[in-house]
């Protein structure tokens, strides 16, 4: 009787401990389904194999671009919130690309740089991410992770840059030399032992590489860019350097210190990237740098 009682007590205790473990495990499993997923895009990007253009290019990465991230809220209990931070990878990638594509690249972060290097700079490029979409297998039932991005590039003369009262750089959109969109697409299939986060990161890296390939192969085809390159070639042929007028005072959109990157809401299940690519050009990149 006593032995039975003792055995029963031990069993009950083990049962209680097991029960607690199972409860914790169940809660952990339930929590996993609801947890948000975060990806800080990372990758090693190659230098492009090109003869650099004999151009000194100024580059401004607006804060909305340099700190770009997008957030997608879960639509149901089975889904997770997604936060994908692409900003650091964007800057890393485009720095490598521009450095391989142009003879000299000047990062313009403040008015002092404009004043000290303005005379050397042939043009200033300002990238922005106009739109980003992603899909994962739970959205589509297709075993592919995809990321699609639409950039808006603007090329301005250094004379179009101005300093605002708060010290921020801005430019007059009317004075831009060229503006053109670049679309990029990256996908990666599902793989054994690959997490959602790893797959989304890989798709983002593929999309960045695709953006670079698209940029390189279409750069000179834009009429505004072609005219700008012809002008530089003519000046170099005649031995004349650029004559920047950096003292303009016209109020223009803030680009170098615009608002901190606001999380962008990605769209899922909407039109296909191809349909979106054919849609109207973005209009808000001048001020926001990123929109959904």
């Amino acid at each position, binding site marked *: 009787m006593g032995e039975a009682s003792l055995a029963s007590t031990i069993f009950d205790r*083990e*049962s209680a401990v*097991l*029960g607690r473990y*199972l409860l914790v495990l169940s809660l952990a499993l339930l929590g996993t389904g609801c947890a948000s997923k975060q990806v800080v895009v990372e990758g090693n990007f*190659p*230098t*492009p*194999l*090109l*003869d650099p253009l004999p151009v000194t290019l100024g580059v401004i990465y607006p804060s909305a671009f340099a700190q770009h991230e997008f957030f997608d809220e879960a639509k149901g209990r089975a889904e997770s919130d997604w936060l994908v931070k692409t900003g650091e990878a964007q800057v890393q990638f485009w720095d490598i690309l521009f450095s391989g594509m142009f003879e000299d690249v000047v990062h313009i972060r403040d008015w002092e740089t404009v004043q000290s290097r303005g005379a050397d700079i042939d043009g200033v490029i300002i990238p922005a991410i106009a739109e980003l979409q992603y899909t994962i297998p739970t959205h589509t039932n*297709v075993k*592919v992770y995809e990321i699609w991005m639409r950039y808006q590039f603007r090329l301005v003369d250094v004379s179009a840059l101005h300093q605002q009262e708060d010290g921020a750089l801005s430019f007059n959109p009317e004075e831009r030399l060229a503006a053109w969109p670049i679309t990029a697409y990256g*996908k*990666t*299939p599902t793989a054994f032992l690959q997490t959602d986060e790893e797959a989304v990161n890989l798709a983002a890296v593929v999309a960045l*590489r*695709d953006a*670079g*390939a*698209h940029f*390189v*192969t279409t750069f000179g085809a834009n009429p505004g860019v072609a005219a700008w390159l012809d002008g530089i070639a003519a000046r170099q042929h005649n031995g004349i350097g650029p004559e920047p007028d950096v003292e303009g005072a016209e109020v223009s959109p803030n680009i170098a210190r615009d608002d901190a990157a606001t999380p962008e809401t990605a769209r899922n299940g909407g039109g296909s990237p191809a349909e979106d690519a054919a849609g109207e050009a973005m209009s808000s990149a001048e001020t926001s740098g990123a929109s959904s």
Partner: protein
Amino acid sequence: MSTGIIWHAIKQWVGAGLCALLLGGCVSATVDEMTYNEPVAGIGESSVVILGRRHAPDYDTEFDFIQCIGDHIHSGDPSIDVIGEIAFINEFYPWFEPRTAPMQPETIDRLLQLPPVAERFAAMQLEYMIWIDGNTVDTESAGSMSCGIGPGVAGCFGFGTWGTESEYEATIWDFTDKVEVGRVSAQTSGQNYMPAVIVPIPIIAPVQGTACDSLGDQLLEYLSAHH
């Protein structure tokens, strides 16, 4: 009585599992080959690169499959220098991305008009560029399996089966003459089984591996002087 029924069911599942073990390794393969201008003396000091096509919207040729074929060729004839795919596309970025990769051998001439590209190709002594297009997919599945966990007890019981199919085509470009000199294709399929009596035992048919070996053998035969 009930114990007898359970033992009978277990015997049935074990029997099915043993059958699966016997059948599981079976993969059927079909290989087609059409090649010209075989380098009868081998490719000497020149090199070969094997690249996967990744421009289709619904699939990518797997990187590990390309690696498998490269390893198969190099292990079959160590004198053949097979350039790694990822290293190659990084060295030639952005000219071999899905968006920009040449689809016809004639278009390589346009790439060679770019001096840095031409210089790098010359340094590489590339003789053949082999493009692999295709993938491996799982097909129809059947069966059922249930798993349970309780205090001190966990296990699965059931039987599942699914098919796997591979379809790949290798296109060989002669890099010197900028012409296509052959195509080799391999189609393989097999059935996978997963019997579970407490512990699930996956019996996976090596479908992709067989496709790799089949395609690799044919390419090795084409490229090597010793095969």
